[in-house]
């Protein structure tokens, strides 16, 4: 399977996501430069975390105008898999690929910590490798992760089972304290109606190896791979890996001139 990680100016989890997909999940992964309009025939587009365009104006508000976003919209409407992580989720909201909006965290501070999320719906392309109600330990790192939607929309999201992940405590309970950013209905991850676009505030790429504290994030990546392999007919090709600390831009250098 081939993943494409989009690089916006200000993306800063691009290499991390690349590392998790290419070196940990062993899937072919390429960078997609925001000024390009070629998706390089990837099977899944990932919008990584970071501060695209400095998050000036509003998180994700400027990135949605990048040339590549027009292609991603086409790709998504044709059923292509799109995963937006953190800033990527915010961009998907701004681009209208997912409904609702993000407010500043309820304590008005940036929050970086491990949180627990619970799989509400394990029938999606992004959660099928997990069990229903399974609790995952995955970190968050954001300023604006306090999900908001008007009541009628929330009711609709609940009814259509579009809420895939919710913040919870270690035992899967939906306590107020566990909902650290104040999201309505504890929403941590949301899918579109068609089921091919997921926005997720926690960072699965930061929880893909035991050495950094948790590998629960693999559940999400593995779900995508399982889904795709089933769809494509059981192809199980693994990509080679060359793991080395990222110093200079990885070859191929990100983006064309």
């Amino acid at each position, binding site marked *: 399977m081939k993943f494409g990680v989009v690089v916006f*100016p*200000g993306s*800063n*989890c691009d*290499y*991390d996501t690349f*590392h*998790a997909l290419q*070196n940990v999940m062993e899937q072919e992964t390429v960078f997609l430069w925001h*000024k390009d309009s070629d998706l390089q025939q990837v099977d899944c587009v990932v919008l990584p*975390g*970071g*501060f695209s*365009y*400095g*998050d*000036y104006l509003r998180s994700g508000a400027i990135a949605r105008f990048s040339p590549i976003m027009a292609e991603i919209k086409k790709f998504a409407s044709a059923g292509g898999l799109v995963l937006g992580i953190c800033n990527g989720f915010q961009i998907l909201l701004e681009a209208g690929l997912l409904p609702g909006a993000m407010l500043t965290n309820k304590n008005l*501070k*940036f*929050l*970086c*910590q491990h949180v627990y999320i619970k799989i509400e719906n394990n029938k999606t392309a992004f959660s099928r490798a997990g069990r229903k109600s399974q609790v995952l330990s995955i*970190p968050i*790192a954001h*300023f604006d992760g306090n999900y908001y939607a008007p009541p009628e929309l929330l009711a609709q999201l609940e009814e259509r089972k579009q809420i895939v992940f919710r913040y919870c405590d270690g035992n899967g309970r939906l306590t107020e304290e566990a909902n650290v950013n104040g999201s309505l209905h504890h929403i941590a991850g949301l899918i579109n109606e068609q089921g091919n676009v997921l926005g997720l505030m926690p*960072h699965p*790429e*930061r929880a*893909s*190896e035991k*050495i*950094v*504290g948790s590998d629960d994030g693999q559940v999400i990546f593995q779900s995508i791979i399982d889904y795709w392999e089933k769809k494509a007919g059981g192809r199980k090709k693994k990509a080679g890996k*060359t*793991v*080395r*600390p*990222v*110093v*200079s*831009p990885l070859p191929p*250098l*990100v*983006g*064309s*001139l």
Partner: protein
Amino acid sequence: MIDDKTLADHNLTRDEYDFIVKLIGREPNLTELGIFSVMWSEHCGYKSSKVYLKKFPTKGKYLIQGPGENAGVMDIGDGLAVVFKIESHNHPSYLEPYQGAATGVGGILRDIFTMGARPVAVLDSLRFGPLDKPKNRSVAEGVVSGISGYGNAFGVPTVGGEVYFHDCYSQNPLVNVCCVGLAEKDRIFLARAQGVGNAVIYVGAKTGRDGIHGATMASAEFGKETEQKRPNVQVGDPFKEKLLLEACLEVMAKGLVIGIQDMGAAGLTCSTTEMAAKSDTGMEINLDLVPQREEGMNPYEIMLSESQERMLIVTSQDKVKPLQDVFSKWDLEAVVIGKVTEDEQLKAYFHGELVIDIPVKAVVDLCPAYRRPVEAPAFVRRLARFKVPGMPPDLDLNQVFLQLVASPDIADKQWVFRQYDHMVQINTIVLPGADAAVLRLKGTKKGLAMTLDGNSLYAYLNPKRGGEIAVAEACRNLACAGAAPMGVTNCLNFGNPEKPEIMWQFKEAVEGIARACRQFDIPVTGGNVSFYNETEGQAVFPTPVLGIVGLVDDVATIPAAGFRGEREAIILLGENKEELGGSEYLKLVFDQEKGKAPELDFRSEKSVQEVCRQAIKQKLVRTAHDLSEGGLAVALAECSIKSKKGLGFEVKLNDPIRTDALLFGESQSRIILVAKEKNAGKILALARKMKVKAKVIGKTGGKKMVIWHRKKKVVDQPVELVRDAFKNSIPGYFKV
């Protein structure tokens, strides 16, 4: 003729001025005076400190680049190098906490990536006034948000550091930021302007009027009119810095750079003159070509602006176009503003007129060095004579224990570090709050351990000892992660050096640090001196902050910071002495900041650390923690609080010393190691072999923290209660 007021405004003396006239053979114009003033400021010229800084050892086995460049560089094997440096941004952070701290981060990041390294970690050492005063809270809140705002957006994890509170920092908060980067060992870039005729290229943000004379500001005491200096503080744009990082690393990887220097303090002035001076060349630039954010800027303003996110690059003419292409890909400007010349002069033109014509080496190398008068302050001897009063018979040590854990210097700093993205780049394997932060090096088994340390109360009581202990404790922190120290950077925060007492504190502290570094055989690779941390005559405690990096051979061996399993043996390495001088306990219970700073014996310190490292290497250690503020009882409490299972402990002690000194004394050279019972003997044997005092003092487990002294139960508290006291203390001050 320049008048006295102009000289005073530029912080130059008449003698210095006469020297300038002699060097350039004529009276300087105002712009040239500005250039000398900023380059010869204490901040850039190190004029009071130079003679002492020479005492630092600067050679070492792994050293690639020592002091004198933007940052130090050490070889860590596998073709990789670690690049690191610490900087202060104290003065701006008091005037405008958010931007002051943010641009402090921005500045040190550029120091690292200008050398060809990708910043992989930031640590910061923060000192504020006590949090019960609203002004101090607002400074603390602003500084933490500023660091968070800049570092998070840039995408560098802030992985550790320290936070202390004392009234001496109420009007002089200290913000020291240390950045660690990784580079390919054979691709380190230096600030060089080689090759006559080569292009001088300005890249990054436009130049504005912000931060003019920031370095000069940081080189004088603050008075009542300080608030008016706010326009001297720069404004940071982390987004632009991130683009600048990627663009710089890309042109470096493509071989398009000969020399590069960031524009930090003293901006264009510093980068042009330093690059040329280090290469025995000169530079000719056209100020009209410098990208400007504001209209009508004059040469003085353009040369002295400290606008952020700018770099100066020298490259050959044929590489200009490909270099500009890369910068335009990242939506950044890259403008040729001049060329390298042979004559060792800096010449600048403005509207066709030659407005600057000065010898670069005079500016860079000939800043006067002063051996200022030193005199030991009277209070030092007086405080050392202080006799610790006897233990009040009605003192409830069990209660004191709880209070100490909640004292802001010791209490949980999660309120601070959860505002920092400490995980981006996914290398952080030991999270903030442990003795040392550790990053894994992807693709290897190795880990990079780093820590910042300094205890200013010890340094106040005895600056030399304070310097020694700062080095020793930093190394001890690394040892607790199993790492051997490799190299040092330091940030020396002091008052006004023109006062003999302050200069004495500085000299003593430097001697202490130098001695300790030689003892541990680690070179000082660079650092920063911040003088004039003094407002209305009130100086900060002498505050040397040491940043030390080390290497862990196998990250799988790193012990946890908290207890891991029931009934594991708690071993104490080192000796409990009756030392209460300068302790948190003395401050809390007796309200005294007096006495003798703890003793430090290098031989035992080094052996204790070696036993710790060996035991970790042999995979015998489950948990390790060094003893520092709050002593043995607090160290044990921390291991328990950080235990994921909430494990308590029961410890039995028989030392023939005062119970309060045993529990809370801050004797040096002590480490707690926790091991499975069957392995305890092996650790004790290891200690015996290295002549280190060691014994099993108790075991982990239960839901309580219990300490016995000579068959008397002196501490007995539920884990949960202590944990809450530890965790709720600092957030409690910020509740609205």
